[in-house]
């Protein structure tokens, strides 16, 4: 008897032109889009030149985004790279989004490239955030060259794993805290290797699309190839609006779909968590690191650069000043988010609190801006915390939720956002 298929199997089967695919099998697929970025573009271009590439099979499927080097100044090599990408896109008819457009993750969604049932090959596993509209990201790194040119490549059919979310987050706790718990639980095992985490459960209806993207963008660090959210009315309405009439294929799991295993997380049990450098699985309840003096606070990245994140930070920062010894950077995930933050008055709240708003992109997460010095402590919503990730190898990079980062920027020490909220209520 043939078993049912999960959503990831159905998306891969569609891209492979088959009725069904088996988890673990290697298949050749045709992607709906390939997405690449600026920092690795010179190496990609070199491979194409060496292979004698003069044309792309489907240039309209290539999405090129400048998000790593948003503001290339004098003395930098990056402005030349921006120009070469722009020229390449114009020559071949590819899609190009220049500095300040935003993270690839956001551009793919906002421009409607990421659509339900679609497959995107990219050079970044965290782009799994497009799973919020039921689009599948498969990270292929160097092979974006192959898919850009030939419009096909191989992939392994990820093993479906089901994570069930129940309960409701308590005040002061954010979905980022759960993401860090999931990473803690799985990052040092091979339980999620070559899998797709398909989220399910009653809690998801109560999560905003921004919260769902945060979780999806972080899940890779727990070990899977990619991740997906279920398509409910909220997600489908957004996807339809952005698709502007382009193809959408809604896949739902068969009732008898088989999952490698299932794990349940109760959101009401989550508390603020901080990831301790230099590993991602060393995650502590905030009480374990409370009071540690910080030098820099940063909110943004593919994990937490969306409206929900900016609103949460603004709720704590409004009418207050960050500690004198702290430098704070806030990066909207895209130009669209930047504009919306302006309309809602968040940018002035950040400026008046003493924070600096940076142009949409990766910015502080890889040390393009906001570089940490020897001995400094950073607390951020970044995705990585290894020695030297965004500055000196002798700096320490702690990770937490936007609320934790904002509360800590105010005191200059790692601070439980629940206590910051309590203080706010007493004051007002």
């Amino acid at each position, binding site marked *: 008897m043939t078993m049912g298929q999960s959503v990831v199997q159905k998306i891969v089967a569609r891209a492979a032109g088959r009725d069904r695919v088996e988890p*673990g099998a*290697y298949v*050749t697929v045709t992607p709906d889009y390939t997405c690449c970025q600026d920092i690795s573009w010179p190496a990609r271009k070199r491979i194409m030149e060496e*292979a*004698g590439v003069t044309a792309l099979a489907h240039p309209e499927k290539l999405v090129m985004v400048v998000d790593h080097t948003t503001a290339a100044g004098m003395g930098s090599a990056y402005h030349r790279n921006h120009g070469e990408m722009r020229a390449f896109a114009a020559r071949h008819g590819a899609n190009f989004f220049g500095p300040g457009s935003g993270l690839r993750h956001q551009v793919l969604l906002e421009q409607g490239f990421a659509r339900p049932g679609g497959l995107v090959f990219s050079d970044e*596993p965290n782009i799994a955030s497009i799973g919020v509209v039921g689009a599948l990201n498969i990270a292929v790194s160097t092979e974006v060259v192959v898919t850009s040119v030939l419009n096909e*490549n*191989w992939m392994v059919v990820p093993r479906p794993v089901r994570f069930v979310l129940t309960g409701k987050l308590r005040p002061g706790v954010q979905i980022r805290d759960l993401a860090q718990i999931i990473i803690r639980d799985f990052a040092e095992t*091979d339980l999620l*290797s070559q899998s797709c985490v398909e989220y399910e459960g009653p809690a998801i209806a109560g999560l905003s699309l921004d919260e769902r993207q945060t979780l999806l963008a972080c899940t890779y660090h727990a070990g899977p190839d990619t991740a997906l959210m279920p398509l409910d009315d909220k997600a489908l309405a957004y996807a339809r609006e952005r698709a502007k009439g382009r193809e959408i294929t809604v896949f739902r799991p068969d009732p008898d779909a088989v999952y490698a295993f299932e794990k349940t997380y109760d959101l009401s049990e989550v508390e603020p968590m901080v990831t301790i450098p230099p590993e991602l699985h060393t995650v502590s309840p905030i009480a374990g690191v409370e009071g540690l003096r910080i030098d820099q606070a940063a909110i943004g990245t593919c994990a937490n650069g969306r409206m929900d994140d900016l609103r949460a930070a603004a709720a704590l920062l409004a009418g207050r000043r960050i500690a004198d010894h702290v430098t704070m950077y806030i990066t909207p995930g895209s130009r669209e988010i930047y504009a919306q933050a302006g309309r809602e008055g968040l940018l002035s709240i950040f400026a008046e609190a003493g924070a600096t708003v940076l142009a949409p992109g990766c910015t502080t997460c890889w040390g393009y801006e906001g570089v940490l010095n020897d001995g400094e402590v950073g607390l951020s919503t970044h995705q990585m915390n290894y020695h030297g990730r965004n500055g000196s190898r002798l700096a320490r990079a702690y990770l937490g939720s936007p609320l934790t980062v904002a509360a800590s920027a105010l005191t200059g020490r790692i601070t439980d956002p629940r206590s910051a909220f309590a203080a706010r209520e007493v004051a007002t």
Partner: protein
Amino acid sequence: MSISGRVWKFGDNISADNGIIQYSQVPDLGSFDVPALKAMLFVLIDPDFPAKVADGDIIVAGSNFGHHSHPHACVAMKASGIRVCMVESTDSAFIRKGLNNGLPIVPCPGIARLVETGERLSVDLAAGVARNQATGRELTFRPYCESMLQVWRSGGLAPALRERVQQARIEGVLP
């Protein structure tokens, strides 16, 4: 087209960057310093390994092979003559990095119990069969698909792309 060679068997949880090689000790990360990479291959597990390994050898390893990877670990193995890595489990990113450098890395549950160091193993990537040549015992695994075999036969991503582009021009798929 089958691979056969002498086996070196290692255990579980061998990190790419701090096991297969020592990424923090790579002299120049911008280029692949092949002599330096070969000199550090598996020395954390067997200090004499670079002197013992020979062209045509096969690595067999346990679960979670090559996690936390940069491509340097694959370059080190390929340049040292390793023809294939047969492992209990690994991640997709490491399989890609290996194949792009002409080195097949193959999840093959049960492989750690099939062979011992020093025995000869044959591997058929297209059929998905691994065979201990001494005992005759066989295991099956998920075979590589045709586009993966093409990359392997070409010797890596760049030469494979060159061949595919030429072929696509002949077929009229690319101008």
